């Protein structure tokens, strides 16, 4: 099922989104990130970890990552929903909650990239990581377009808006902290 979804996301993303939304695939929305994070973690471990570190990461590290993802998922979706509404879109936040985890699907490819990198050079992993990240972003934009009937540019803007806002807040906080310490 996940692999069929994977196939649809390559060829017909809209069809994949439609199926997930209409069939209310909550199980996929919860399990898919687990597999995505497992793949992401595994790909790093293949290249950089020893046995002991891998054992620890694949148990507690993965549980921690997954928990963080769930928090991020539940936290980010309403922000994206708000962002899309600001951009003029109309859609349901529950639908977005179901669709959003597909952004982790491209990271399924990373273990393969890691193995190739082991043979051909680690720079290739960086290429693979950038490729998967860009694909993931592209899927996010498509999901927002589909769910909120937005134009491509507006969907991209909606995706970047929460990040840009948080980045701005972060920079401002750092500046204020630096100023405060300079006057201490």
């Amino acid at each position, binding site marked *: 099922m996940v*692999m*069929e979804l*994977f*196939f649809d996301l390559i060829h017909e993303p809209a069809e994949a989104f439609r199926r997930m939304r209409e069939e209310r695939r909550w199980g996929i929305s919860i399990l898919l990130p687990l597999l995505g994070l*497992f*793949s992401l973690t*595994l*790909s790093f*471990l*293949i290249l950089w*970890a*020893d*046995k*002991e570190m*891998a054992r620890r990461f694949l148990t507690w590290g993965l549980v921690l990552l997954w928990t963080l993802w769930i928090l991020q998922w539940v936290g980010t979706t309403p922000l994206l929903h708000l962002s899309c509404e600001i951009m003029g879109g109309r859609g349901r936040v529950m639908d977005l909650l179901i669709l959003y985890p597909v952004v982790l699907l491209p990271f*399924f490819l990373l*273990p*393969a990239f*890691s*193995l190739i990198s*082991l043979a051909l050079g680690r720079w290739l992993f960086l290429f693979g990581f950038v490729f998967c990240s860009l694909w993931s972003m592209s899927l996010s934009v498509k999901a927002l377009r589909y769910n909120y009937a937005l134009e491509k540019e507006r969907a991209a803007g909606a995706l970047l808006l929460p990040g840009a806002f948080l980045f701005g807040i972060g920079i401002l906080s*750092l500046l204020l*902290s*630096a100023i405060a*310490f*300079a006057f*201490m």
Partner: protein
Amino acid sequence: MNKRFISIAILTLYTASVLTGLWVILGRRARERKEAVSLGSLVRKTGEKLAVVEIFGPIYMSQRSTGFIKADAERTLRRLKRIRKDPSILGVLLKINSPGGTVAATQEIHAELLKIKKSGKKVVASLGDVAASGGYYVACAADKIVANPGTLTGSIGVILELWNFETLLKKIGAKTETIKSGARKDIGSYARTMTPEERQALQELIDNAYGQFFQAVSEGRKIPKEKLAAFADGSIFTGAQAKEAGLVDSLGGSEEALEVLVKETKIQGEPQMIEGGEEPWERFFDLIPFQERSRTNPLLQNLLPNQRVRFEYILE
């Protein structure tokens, strides 16, 4: 059909890459072997600990008592005290890359290292690019000193540099008004030429501080004073020259120094290395550019060099 075939192909590729990845990780021992070699080809983990302490950059104390951020010397001291009180730590690898610093800060670290040795732990110093003057003073407290052949070290001496702007101030028609409680209260003032008596007084201070440095090197390195006097004139040496002079024990990098420490501590197995030691907030605040504020008039601060009178064991 085509879709099903591609789906199965994707699934197979994914499963194969995951299984191969797990096999690569679980079968991996190269890194573990490499670590064992780096620790002297030892084979058994013992749980005994060695601490790594880094002394990088100038050695000085904070000039204020409050605030989250302490100068490196204070952090180092705090770390060394913790190490001294921890019975599970058997030795300290002291990585030094420092041109020296203020006399008191240097001596305080040196004294703490001597206390660590007295508590039964071993200390081995590994000298990096530069371990001169105060950087070398600190190293003298170690049981063994390992330097790279090209390390700059030595520079045994004390320095006090003061600026004299009397002529310049006269030219621009400026002068300072000094009200003082005693004749020597403004000793080292940039606004006037030093008197011979003041020079003599400062020279005595310098000689006294130099005597302390000389004593520390002589005792730490077990070099007779007559022999040490021949090269303790502020001269800088490479690591190779320093070894000939007896200022260091052997040549090598931090890996070799670690091997020496493992031998000194007689650990029969792979020790656990303890690094870092900063508090979490220190790591966070290190990210923010920060400088201690000077109390000098901002206008003068831009015009004049920092004219604080302080003695330094430092390589200029």
